């Protein structure tokens, strides 16, 4: 297959916080885009096209891409919107790769965002209802009992999905709630070193997190990601432009996005769920295998230098790290105990603080790619990992918990 080599040559983000009431979507998105253009030292004129995306229905505007063009300087240029649930940002980043690798465009901006504060209900009702309405409405026609609906409501949409996953993972790996405390503390500590992150807590310890109340066992308040407003953007270019514009481009070496059958919400027609362990995440495993093959990576345990894993809940950092082949099955929590996953550890996981500290949903999986690019370019400032980064792994997760994106960035094109 003939593909052009492609690299990230610039990164831009907004500061993430609970409420960016001072800007609208277009203004917020343009902030990230302008920062990325400045970082890449290119003008908006040089950009051929824009790949954009956020979660449908989470903000106040259903089709924000229709009115961000003028703010981005995109009028008269192609704007392609991609929305794949929680993986949106990962898909937008990969979309940026596709349009350049294919030869269609030479330089594009890929930007993803979420503005939760534009919805009074922080996405949880309006946005997530879009995910679940079809099957609930259908089942309601057959006498779905209110008691069962109460049960669904108390577990709560995304948190509920993650609670089940966590229970499965604890059962099969032997990890405990104290390991979730450790992951969450690490996320907040790392976030304190990332000036764009949302929940920053310098020096946060597992004991600090353990003092917070249980929401739904095994999750405490201190384990749960915030709902953030924010945007993140990357400038993506083909090889000759990338070499000209960037001292150290972050090359796309391998990428893949796989799904699996729906694994939690009883499907469109309220049928049973065929995946009996929602933490199995076969789509993630398939994506990783494919992306490593494309990147020429044989042993991810030694060849991946840093990983940004999509972990709105701390349990997810652990089992996804295993699914991504960075640790043996059921052992990621042991590596956590020995500090291997710290910024200065052997296999740093989420040095930026990750989604657990900053969750502007549409943007979250894009941030993983962006953060990996920063690590390769050596621009991650205070949360830069101390070792030389040759390969960095960016992961995204979403769908009805069955979608995954995996992107391997490297310091060379790899072929």
């Amino acid at each position, binding site marked *: 297959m003939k593909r052009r080599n492609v690299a990230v040559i610039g990164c831009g983000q907004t500061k993430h916080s609970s409420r960016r009431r001072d800007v609208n979507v277009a*203004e917020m998105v343009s902030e990230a885009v302008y920062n990325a253009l400045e970082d890449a030292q290119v003008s908006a004129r040089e950009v051929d096209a824009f790949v954009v995306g956020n979660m449908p229905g989470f903000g106040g505007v259903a089709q924000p891409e229709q009115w961000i063009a003028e703010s981005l300087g995109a009028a008269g240029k192609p704007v392609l919107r991609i929305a794949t649930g929680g993986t949106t940002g990962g898909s937008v980043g990969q979309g940026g790769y596709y349009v350049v690798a294919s030869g269609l465009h030479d330089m594009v901006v890929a930007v993803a965002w979420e503005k939760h504060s534009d919805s009074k209900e922080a996405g949880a009702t309006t946005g997530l209802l879009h995910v679940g309405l079809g099957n609930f409405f259908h089942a309601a026609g057959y*006498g779905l009992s209110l008691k069962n*609906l*109460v049960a669904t409501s*108390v577990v709560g949409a995304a948190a509920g999905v993650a609670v089940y996953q966590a*229970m499965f993972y604890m059962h099969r790996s032997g990890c405990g709630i104290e390991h979730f405390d450790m992951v969450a503390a690490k996320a907040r500590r790392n976030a304190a070193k990332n000036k764009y992150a949302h929940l920053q807590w310098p020096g946060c310890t597992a004991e600090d997190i353990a003092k917070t109340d249980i929401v739904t066992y095994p999750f405490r308040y201190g384990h749960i990601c915030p709902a953030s407003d924010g945007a993140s953007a990357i400038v993506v270019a083909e090889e000759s432009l990338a070499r000209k514009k960037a001292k150290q481009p972050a090359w796309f070496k391998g990428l893949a996005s796989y799904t699996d059958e729906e694994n939690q919400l009883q499907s469109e*027609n309220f049928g049973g769920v*065929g995946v009996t362990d929602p933490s199995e995440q076969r789509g993630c495993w398939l994506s990783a295998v494919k992306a490593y093959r494309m990147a020429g990576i044989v042993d991810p345990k030694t060849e991946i230098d840093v990983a940004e894993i999509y972990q709105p809940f701390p349990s997810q950092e652990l089992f996804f790290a295993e699914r991504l082949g960075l640790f043996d099955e059921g052992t990621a929590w042991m590596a956590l105990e020995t500090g291997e996953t710290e910024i200065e550890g052997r296999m740093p996981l989420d040095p930026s603080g990750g989604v657990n500290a900053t969750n502007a949903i549409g943007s979250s999986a894009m941030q993983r790619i962006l953060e990996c690019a920063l690590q390769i370019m050596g621009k991650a400032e205070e949360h830069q990992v101390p070792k030389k980064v040759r390969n960095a792994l960016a992961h995204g997760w979403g769908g009805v918990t069955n979608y995954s994106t995996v992107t391997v960035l490297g310091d060379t094109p790899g072929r």
Partner: protein
Amino acid sequence: MGYLKDERPTTIGVEGGWNLGAYHYKGSRLLEEYVAGLKHKKLTGSFCPGCARVIVPPRNLCGRCHRKMDGRKTVSDRGTITCFVVSPPIYKGKLKVLGMDPVEIGLVKDGQVVIPVFVKFDGSDSNTDTVLLNADPKDVHIGMRVKVVWAKELQGSLADVEGVEPI
């Protein structure tokens, strides 16, 4: 940095409602078959000719083989808990379901916990979402054996399965 419209300092909201009834959905008729079985205390699953999995309630297509699940199999109303969640206590005025307070309308007692569970019914290969009844939250565990609590009056509706209870 970025393009800023500076005539308004903050975002604004407007009052209004949203009519969910404006949407249409087309579901399958499989649930009709399933709830007809419930009326006779029968749990119906669909069988995949590709991978031999039995899914309860039935589905049209196998998610992994993409084959029509035309076969039917009745599975036991006894099974094993594969996963559970113990909710925090539900207090009056804290939770709204479809606009109603579950304590106020008598669905749960004030301060009661609910225990959503996944159950793999004997003879099936799927998780079925339901709730655990008549059990002490401290005793719940993965692998716990349970059986269906059938409604007193069976009506051929999803509500015929009130939940499961320990055997």
